[in-house]
């Protein structure tokens, strides 16, 4: 990445003939004390992978010192004097890594361990702000170990939010101590903070090294190849299930879940028709912002333009009746994922499974907590307008915007433009070409504190060519 909120480098697009990347990959491993981070690190080091790994750990590390190279270091944070309060680097890392890179036999991988209290920003920015680090090393991924059993106690802390906002990979450890429902709830909470993170459930930090090391999470080319799937559509409901139903009464049963109520819309019939399904989806977006109808024990939920709010008792869960008059395919839009409440539908003496299910990302509305805002916009962006918008936005809000990633459709460019940023630094390059039949659109995700969806969406829209 170039210097602070500088222009995205659109000229440097000759990526096809790029020489093999000889930079040494760096993984930043972070997590709170007791999360299992040290166990994970020891597993990585003891596994037979044939890699020569150097570890830079903070002062309170406990890893086996018989390992090839372990350097202890404490955090020396340097503010970069370029006018950005959030541009900081780790001076100790620059010096240590500079020396480690001056060896005949280079390391295959470097792991930097940080505590859960440390802000991941300076570590990440070190690899973009220092010319030497940038040239010799490649930030591969930020991996955060989370104790599934205890994380809820500190998930609302600033430190925890920052850790999760930066994570490319979350290792959700100690999953054996938590039941499935709690795990689902926890995962959806993690996703509401950082929707781009990959979550792996583990017990005793057991996870294949190939899922942690050399995964190119910071690599724009790799990300470009994975996209556009990296953005799930963001809707006011998290799930849509399609059911084939005959006339009669059906029993919708929910177990106690993470929330005291759940909002539902029942639509149909005729949902085999995808156009009709899309129409119902749009309709439901509107309905979800209307006043809900509370579901009483005597209420019969009917397909139609009604937003139902079903109270879910902390002990008893919930039961509701669905009445179907015409046979056909119906859709049930649910505010939360069905797994979180073990949602089931019974009728005619048997369990009805959905014939199809769609998951959506839950939206992050304007509040002061850390979350993700994803924006999707059809059409081409004006490159200059986009650039000046991003530069201005990151200058103003760079402290609160921890990460930003996007795939853009720029006017006049046959290829996707892929970019990502850490605080005020951002960098971009050309990605894959647009296919002839592809809908040209731009997708952006911001992860940060106090994000205003409307402001971001309006800002992007104003960049349309």
């Amino acid at each position, binding site marked *: 990445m170039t210097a602070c909120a500088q222009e995205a480098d659109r000229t440097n697009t000759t990526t096809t003939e790029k020489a093999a990347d000889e930079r040494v990959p760096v993984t930043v491993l972070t997590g709170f004390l007791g999360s299992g981070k040290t166990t994970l690190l020891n597993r990585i080091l003891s596994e037979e992978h044939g890699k020569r790994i150097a570890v830079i750990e903070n002062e309170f590390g406990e890893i086996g010192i018989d390992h090839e190279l372990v350097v202890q270091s404490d955090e020396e944070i340097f503010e970069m004097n370029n006018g950005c309060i959030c541009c900081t680097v780790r001076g100790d890392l620059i010096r240590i890594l500079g020396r480690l890179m001056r060896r005949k036999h280079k390391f295959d991988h470097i792991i930097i361990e940080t505590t859960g209290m440390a802000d991941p920003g300076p570590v990440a920015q070190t690899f973009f702000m*220092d010319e030497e680090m940038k040239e010799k090393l490649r930030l591969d991924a930020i991996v955060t170990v989370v104790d599934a059993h205890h994380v809820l106690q500190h998930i609302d802390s600033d430190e925890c939010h920052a850790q999760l906002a930066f994570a490319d990979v979350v290792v959700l450890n100690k999953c054996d101590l938590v039941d499935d429902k709690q795990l689902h709830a926890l995962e959806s909470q993690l996703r509401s903070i950082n929707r781009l993170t990959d979550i792996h459930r583990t017990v005793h930090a057991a996870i294949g090294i190939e899922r942690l090391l050399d995964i190119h999470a910071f690599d724009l080319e790799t990300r470009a190849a994975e996209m556009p799937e990296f953005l799930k559509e963001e809707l006011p409901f998290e799930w849509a299930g399609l059911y084939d139903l005959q006339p009669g009464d059906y029993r919708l049963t929910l177990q106690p879940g993470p929330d005291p109520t759940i909002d539902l819309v029942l639509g149909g019939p005729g949902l085999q028709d995808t156009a009709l399904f899309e129409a119902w989806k749009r309709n439901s977006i509107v309905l979800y912002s209307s006043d809900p109808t509370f579901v009483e024990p005597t209420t019969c939920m009917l397909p139609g333009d009604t937003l139902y709010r079903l109270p879910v008792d902390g002990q008893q869960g919930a039961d509701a009746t669905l009445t179907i008059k015409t046979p056909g395919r119906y859709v049930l839009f649910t505010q939360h994922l069905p797994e979180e409440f073990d949602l089931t539908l019974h009728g005619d003496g048997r369990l009805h499974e959905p014939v199809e299910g769609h998951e959506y990302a839950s939206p992050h509305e304007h509040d002061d907590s850390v979350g993700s805002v994803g924006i999707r916009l059809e059409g081409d962006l004006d490159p200059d307008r986009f650039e000046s918008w991003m530069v201005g936005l990151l200058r103003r809000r760079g402290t609160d915007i921890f990460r930003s990633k996007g795939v853009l459709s720029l006017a006049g460019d046959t290829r996707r433009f892929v970019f990502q940023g850490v605080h005020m630094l951002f960098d971009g390059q050309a990605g894959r070409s647009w296919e002839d039949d592809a809908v040209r659109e731009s997708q952006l995700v911001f992860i940060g504190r106090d994000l205003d969806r409307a402001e971001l969406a309006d800002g992007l829209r104003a960049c349309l060519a």
Partner: protein
Amino acid sequence: MPGLAAIAGKAPFGLRHSHTLDDVVTDLAWSSDGKALLVGSAAGAVHRLDHGSEVTARWQAHDGGITRLRLQPGDDRVLASAGEDGKVALWNSVDGEALSTLANENDWVEHLAWTPDGKVLAAAARKTISLWQGTESLGMWYDARRHVLAMDWAPDGRRLASAANKGLYLWRLGDAVTGDAEPVQLLTFPGAPVSVAWQPQGRALAVGTQDGFLQVWRPTDTNNAARQLTMRGYPSKVNCLAWHPRRTVIATAGGPDIVLWDMPVDRTDTKNGSAKGRPLRHHQATVTAIAWSADGRLLASGDRNGRLCIWDENGDAVFSLALGSEITVVQWHPVNAVLSVADGDGRLHLVDRLQSDSGQPVRQHPARELRRAQD
């Protein structure tokens, strides 16, 4: 092509000798008579090369890389070394006999310096500067708030400049070093230093920063007010500083260009910041090492891609050679125009003047102006 200057007839140099060591050279030291060269490696070994070519001694000095090697001024038989193993040790530089282990801690010892008279040795690890006279500890200077990022003894041998985040500090060597000693703050600036160097006559002190600017402190006789200058415009951290041995000219690098600053110390000069840095352009990659010859007539520089360059006193490149991997150290012989150069493949090269002329043209890049601001 503009600026194309042939080196024919100027001062042709040639590669005399190359020697492959066990690992990358991290530091080297010539004996004062130039007969011996002591070389430290990233594998922790010290090699002694006599006449610069024949290895006459080799010993494992550290468990981990050597960070600094310093021969004691006034006594070439004593070699001080510091390493990533947290050790500071003294060696017989002739045969490698261990004379004393002065310190054996956990943290990397990143800095090591003798006073110019060779009486006191200082070593810094993290926030602590330890001092010895001979093998006797003089105690330590410790500042809990600041890591020592670079340090250099003043030519008088009584004051040690220590560069820390956002400031430059001066410790005074008293009759005794006490635990509650406090440094004098010489400079404050917003950046983090990566290098520090005294002008050899003590007329100025320069600090290069991570943020790509240079700070120079000059004591003046008017109002006792020292003058602080700031030079900006470097594309990356200013990691190379080399004062001319006699003049108040400093060669600096923070990117592919070397920049010479002429720093008159007379109080009547350049208050308005009219002085311009003079760029020397030949390198295509970030410069990693620079050094003046003992007589100050030649300047050597090496870069990240392994390009070695020798400049004459007019600032013309008189020799250029590609060595294939990053140059880690350049150092001139103390008497003759012989240059020792180490590269990232663990090779040590000696370059000296050729008898015959076999020069090749050296391309000079058109000059770009750097600006200098005064704080």
